[in-house]
C-alpha cells in the first residue's frame, strides 16, 4: 500500500521541466469595446453531452423526491415520531435556503458591473486560454468540478466572469451561509449561481442528505460545473490551507457509485499581485474581528476602487479524470452490495483516496500559481529588516528568482523586463507596505525607534504580516528543500539518516501549516535534497549530505525563510510549559499567547512578530494535539 500511494503521489521533481501555457489579458478587450454590449452578448455555452435540461426548480423537486432524501425523511420520522410531512416541509425549507437560482439576467448585470470594477481595480486579468479550451472540451464529455484556490472574495466572481467571457457554462458555487446575511447581494449571488451551505452541519442528518443530494443531482444531470473551494475558506496568509474533504467526497460519490462514467476535477490557480483584502487579513490575524459581511460594508469598501491592485493570473489546470485517478486505487465498487441510495459511511480505502485526491489537487493549484516579483522582494526584505539598500535588493531578488525557478516556481516575469524595473514597479504597487527612502527600501512603520509600546508593536506586526503573506506564496513551493536546509542547520550533522529524521519531525510538525501529500515523507525528503543539489547548495552521497562552500548562504537563506514558524512554535511551547492550568479553551489560549508574545516583543527578547498570527497559533495547537502532546476535549 505504501508503495502504491507513493507512486500515485504527484512527482514534484518533474515540475521544473514542465511547460506551462501562455497567458492572455482579457481586460484588454474590455478596455476597447462596450461593456454594455458585452453584457448583452449572445451567450450560448457548450453543454454536457448527457445534459437533461431543466430549471433550478425542477432540480429542487427531484432532490426532494429522490430516494436518498425520502429515505432519510422516513428514518427521521420513525425515530422522532414526527410526521413525515413535517420533516418533508423542513427539507423544503432547507432546500429553499440553500438552492441557487441561476438566472441570465443577474449574470448580465454582473458582467456589466464587474467589467467596470475590474477595469478600475486591476491592470490585467490574465488567463491561459489553452486551459479554457481544455475545460470547454471537458464540459462536454463529463460532469466537471472546478476547484479554485481561495485568496479573495473576488475568486468566484472572477471565475464566473471569465467563464461568461469565454462562453462556457456558468458554474454553481458552494458559498458560505454568511453571504446570505447581506441584503440584495445574497439574492444576487444566488441568481448568479451561488448555493449556500451552513458552515457546520455534521450532526444534522436531514441537512446533510438534502445538501449532498442537491449537489449530486446537479452533478449527475450535468446541469452545470460545480465549483467549491477545497480550502474551505479564504487563506488569510496566502499559504494553501489544508483541504476539507466533505464536499469533495460528495462530488466524487456519483463516480464511485458509477452513476456517472467519469468526473473531471479542474484545479484552478488564481494569483493576485496584490490581494484586495490584504490589510483586512492582517487585522484579522492579529485578533481584530472580521467585519460581518454586510452590504453597507461592501459599499464602504468602495474606496479601494481608487486603488491599484496590479494583475491577476488565473490558470486553468489540466482537467483530471477521476476515473484515471481511481484506476488501480479503487478496484471494486464497494457499493455493489448495498442499495445506492442508502447513506453509507465511506470505507477506509475510499476515505484515504479522497484525502489523497484533495492533496493532489491542492498541490496542482500550488504548481500553477503565478508568482510575482513582489513575492521575491517580500522574502528578501523580511530577512533584512528594517531596511535594505535598493541595489542589494535587486541583486538578491534576481538571485532568489533563479532558485525559485529551479524549485519549479512559476513566474510571469514580463519579457525582457529588467530586474530594476520589475522591483521598482512592484514597490510602487505596494506603497502601503514598503517605501523607498534615500535609496533604501523600508518596511513601513519599522523605522520608528522610540518606545516599544503595544500600539507600535501592533502596527509593526501589521506590516510584517502583510509582507509575510506574500513571502508565504513562495513557501508553498519552497517547503521541501527549505525544511531540508532547516534540518541541516538543526542537526549540524552530515549523516543522512539523522537529517532525514529531523526533516520528518519538522514535516510532521508543520503538516497543518503547509501542504504535504500524506504518507510520503521519504519522497518529500528526496525531492528536497534533489532540488538543493540542483542549485548546488548541497552534495548528496549515499550516507551523507554536505553543504557546499558556495551553498552556505543559500542554505541559511532558505532556512531563515521558515524561521518565523520555527520560532513561533518555540514561543508557543514556552508559553504552554509555563501555563499552569490543566485545561483551557482555545479562546483562552489565543488570548494568553497573545499577551505572552506582546511581552516578549516589548522587552525585545524576540523579533518574531509572526507569532502574533492567530493562524500560526491555531496550527501549532492543532499540531500539538496531533502529536499527542495535548489533548482535545469536548466541553
Amino acid at each position, binding site marked *: 500500500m505504501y508503495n502504491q500511494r507513493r507512486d500515485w503521489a504527484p512527482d514534484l521533481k518533474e515540475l521544473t521541466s514542465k511547460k506551462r501555457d501562455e497567458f492572455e489579458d482579457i481586460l484588454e478587450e474590455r478596455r476597447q469595446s462596450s461593456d454594455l454590449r458585452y453584457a448583452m452578448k449572445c451567450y450560448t455555452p457548450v453543454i454536457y453531452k448527457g445534459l437533461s435540461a431543466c430549471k433550478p426548480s425542477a432540480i429542487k423537486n427531484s432532490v426532494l423526491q429522490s430516494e436518498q432524501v425520502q429515505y432519510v425523511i422516513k428514518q427521521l420520522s420513525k425515530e422522532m415520531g414526527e410526521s413525515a410531512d413535517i420533516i418533508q416541509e423542513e427539507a423544503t425549507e432547507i432546500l429553499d435556503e440553500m438552492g441557487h437560482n441561476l438566472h441570465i439576467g443577474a449574470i448580465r448585470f454582473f458582467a456589466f458591473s464587474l467589467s467596470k470594477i475590474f477595469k478600475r481595480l486591476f491592470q490585467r486579468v490574465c488567463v491561459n486560454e489553452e486551459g479554457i479550451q481544455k475545460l470547454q472540451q471537458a464540459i462536454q464529455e463529463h460532469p466537471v468540478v472546478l476547484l479554485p484556490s481561495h485568496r479573495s472574495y473576488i475568486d468566484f466572481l472572477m471565475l464566473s466572469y471569465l467563464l461568461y467571457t469565454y462562453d462556457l457554462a456558468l458554474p454553481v458555487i458552494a458559498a458560505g451561509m454568511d453571504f446570505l446575511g447581506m441584503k440584495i447581494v445574497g439574492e444576487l449571488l444566488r441568481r448568479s449561481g451561488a448555493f449556500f451551505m451552513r458552515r457546520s452541519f455534521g450532526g444534522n442528518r436531514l441537512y446533510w442528505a438534502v445538501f449532498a443530494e442537491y449537489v449530486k443531482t446537479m452533478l449527475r444531470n450535468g446541469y452545470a460545473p460545480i465549483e467549491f473551494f477545497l480550502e474551505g475558506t479564504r487563506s488569510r496568509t496566502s499559504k494553501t490551507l489544508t483541504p476539507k474533504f466533505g464536499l469533495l467526497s460528495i462530488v466524487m460519490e456519483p463516480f464511485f457509485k*458509477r452513476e456517472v*462514467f467519469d468526473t473531471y476535477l479542474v484545479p484552478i490557480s488564481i494569483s493576485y499581485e496584490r490581494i484586495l483584502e490584504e490589510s483586512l487579513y492582517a487585522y484579522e490575524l492579529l485578533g481584530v474581528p472580521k467585519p460581518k459581511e454586510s452590504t453597507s460594508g461592501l459599499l464602504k469598501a468602495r474606496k479601494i476602487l481608487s486603488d491599484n491592485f496590479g494583475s491577476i493570473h488565473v490558470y486553468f489546470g489540466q482537467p483530471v479524470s477521476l476515473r484515471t485517478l481511481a484506476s488501480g486505487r479503487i478496484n*471494486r*465498487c464497494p457499493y455493489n452490495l448495498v*442499495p445506492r441510495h442508502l447513506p453509507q459511511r465511506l470505507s477506509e480505502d475510499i476515505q484515504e483516496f479522497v484525502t489523497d485526491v484533495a492533496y493532489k489537487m491542492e498541490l496542482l493549484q500550488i504548481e500553477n500559481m503565478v508568482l510575482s516579483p513582489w513575492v521575491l522582494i517580500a522574502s528578501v526584505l523580511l530577512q533584512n529588516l528594517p531596511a535594505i539598500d535598493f541595489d542589494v535588493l535587486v541583486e538578491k531578488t534576481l538571485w532568489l528568482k533563479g532558485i525559485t525557478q529551479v524549485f519549479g516556481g512559476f513566474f510571469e516575469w514580463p519579457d525582457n523586463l529588467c530586474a530594476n524595473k520589475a522591483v521598482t514597479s512592484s514597490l510602487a504597487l505596494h506603497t502601503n507596505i514598503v517605501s523607498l527612502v534615500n535609496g533604501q527600501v523600508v518596511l513601513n512603520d519599522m523605522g520608528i525607534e522610540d518606545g516599544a509600546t503595544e500600539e507600535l508593536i501592533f502596527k509593526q506586526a501589521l506590516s510584517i504580516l502583510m509582507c509575510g503573506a506574500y513571502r508565504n506564496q513562495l513557501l508553498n513551493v519552497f517547503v521541501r528543500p527549505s525544511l531540508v536546509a532547516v534540518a541541516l542547520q538543526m542537526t549540524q550533522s552530515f549523516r543522512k539518516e539523522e537529517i532525514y529524521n529531523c526533516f520528518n519531525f519538522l514535516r510532521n510538525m508543520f503538516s497543518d501549516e503547509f501542504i504535504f501529500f500524506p504518507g510520503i515523507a521519504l519522497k518529500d525528503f528526496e525531492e528536497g535534497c534533489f532540488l538543493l543539489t540542483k542549485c548546488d547548495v548541497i552534495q548528496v552521497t549515499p550516507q551523507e549530505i554536505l553543504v557546499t562552500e558556495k551553498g552556505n548562504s543559500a542554505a541559511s537563506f532558505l532556512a531563515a525563510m521558515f524561521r518565523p514558524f520555527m520560532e513561533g512554535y518555540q514561543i508557543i511551547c514556552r508559553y504552554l510549559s509555563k501555563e499552569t492550568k490543566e485545561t483551557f479553551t482555545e479562546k483562552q489560549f489565543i488570548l494568553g499567547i497573545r499577551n505572552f508574545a506582546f511581552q516578549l516583543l516589548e522587552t525585545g527578547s524576540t523579533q518574531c512578530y509572526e507569532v502574533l498570527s492567530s493562524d500560526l497559533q491555531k496550527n501549532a495547537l492543532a499540531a500539538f494535539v496531533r502529536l499527542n502532546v495535548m489533548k482535545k476535549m469536548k466541553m
Partner: protein
Amino acid sequence: RQEILKWNGWGYNDSKFIFNKKGQAEFTGKRYRLSGMVLPILKEWMEKTLGASLEHKITSRTSLNISDVPPSIVNEEFLQDLRATKISYSREAEDRVFRAHGHCLHEILVLREGMFKRIPDIVVWPDCHDDVVKIVELASKHNLCIIPFGGGTSVSSALECPADERRTIVSLDTSQMNRILWIDERNLTAHIEAGIIGQDLERQLGESGYCTGHEPDSMEFSSLGGWVATRASGMKKNIYGNIEDLVVHIKMVTPRGVIEKGCQVPRMSTGPDIHHFIMGSEGTLGVVTEVTIKIRPTPEYQKYGSVVFPNFERGVACLREIAKQRCAPASIRLVDNAQFQFGHALKPQVASIFTSFLDGLKKFYITKFKGFDPNELCVATLLFEGDREKVLQHEKQVYDIAAKFGGLAAGEDNGQRGYMLTFVIAYLRDLGLDYYVIGESFETSVPWDRVIDLCRNVKERIVRECKEKGVQFAPFSTCRVTQTYDAGACVYFYFAFNYRGISDPIHVYEQIETAAREEILANGGSLSHHHGVGKLRKQWMKESISDVGLGMLKSVKAYVDPNNIFGNRNLL
C-alpha cells in the same frame, strides 16, 4: 452434422453474408427468412458505422492445412481397450480440430489463419450412457484427459485444450446420444439423452404435441447436456423458466461413478441440491448423459409485437414496470438506438413502392408527429405465447403499460424481424472478419436500479478503450436488455471495431474485452448470466463468489475427480 457446418465460422455452410457482384450485401442459403435476400443498406452501414471498406478484404484460407495440425498421440493399450468396447472413434485431423474450439473470436481467428497449440488427440462417439461409463473408466485406468463436447457453441474458451496438458486428450462427443427415451404425459416430463441438439429436441417433442420451451439463441446447434453444464437460459424463460427450473433429474458419469437422485420429484429438501453442483460445472466433473426435463403442450397461438420508446431510459423503466407487475410476455427485449439502427441496416430490399411508402409514413409519424429523436429512440420486441384469447388480453395489458412510458406499438413484423436477426447476427461476424472488422458479444445480469448506468458506462468504456488503444474508427458498441426478472435484468452487449492500422488486433481486442468486464463488475453486474465462465473469465471467479465459495467448489472437484480426468480447467 460436421459436414453441413462451417469449419471456420458460425453455423451452416450454405448460410452466409456475402457481397454480390453488384456490391450489395446478400444472405445466402434457404434456411432463414432472410436467406436469398439482398440487403441494400448493409454496405453503407458498415462503411459509416465501422469505417469498413469493400476494397480492403482479407479472406480466410479455404481449408484446413493438415500438416499444421498437432499429431494425435494415443497409447496403443488404450486404443486396444477402446476397440474392445466397439465405441466409434476417430483420429482424423479434421475431426479433432473441429472439436478443439468454441466460438470465441480468438478461436475463430486461429481457425482462419493459424493453428491451436493443443487439440484433442482422439474423438470418441459414445452411443449411450453405458458407453460413457466405459470411456470414463478407461480414461481413469490409462490416466487420460476427457473434454466433453456437445454442440460446440461455447463462447467462454471452455473447449480449448490446455496447452500444457501432457496426457492424451479425449474429446467425448455426445452427438450420438440424441434420443428421447420416454415421454411421461401424466407428469409432463421427458427423459432425453443429453447429446440431443435443441432444434431436434423441440421438433421431435413437437411431433407428440409438446415442447420444452427452452430456446437459447444457439438452439440450432447447442445440446441439452451443454445447457445443463453451463446453466443456460432460454429466450422464453418467462413462461418456461431457465434450465435450472426445467430440469427434474440429471444423470452424470464422473470418475467416482454415476451421480443421480433417487426419485423424480418437483422439489425436495435433502440438503443442498446436488443438481446445482452439476449445472454450471462446465465439464469439470463429468459427462451429463441423460436428463429428465419438464415439457409443456405446444402453445396454440404465438404473436410477435414491438414497441418504440422515445429513449432507452423510458424503455428500461417500462420493462421494469412489466417485471414488477409480473406480466412479462414469453420474451421481451429492448434494443438500444445503435442496435435499432443496425437492425434497420439489415432490412431486405423492399418488394414494392407501396411498402416503402408505408415505411416512410411510419417513420414520419414517429419522428415528426410524435417527436421521437431518431438518434435516441429504441425498440422493444415482444413474443406472446399461449391460448389465443389470453394472448390478446395479455398483449393489451403490456401495450397499456408501455403507453404509460411513452411507448408506441410498432407492429408484429418488426418484432418478428428482431427475433430472426438474433439467429442471423451470429453469421455477420464472419462477414466482418473478411473486412478487418472483429467483434464479439458478451452478457451480464444486473439489478434493476443499475441497468441504465451499467449499459451507459460499459458502452462508453469500450469506446474509450478503443480510442486509447489506437483503434482508428469509433467502435460499434451496443446493448440490449434480453431478460427481465423480479430483481433485475440480463443485458447483452455487442461490440465490433475496424482494426485496420493496428498491428496486434487480437491483443487489443482482448484488452478491451477485459476492460469491459471490469466495468461490468464495477457497476454491480455479474460475471455471467448464461454464457458461463470457462477459461475466459476464470480470473474473476474469486471476487465473484469469494474465497470460501471457490474453496467449496474445489473440494467438490477434489472428491469427484481427484485425478483431474475432466481436465478442461474451466471455472476453477
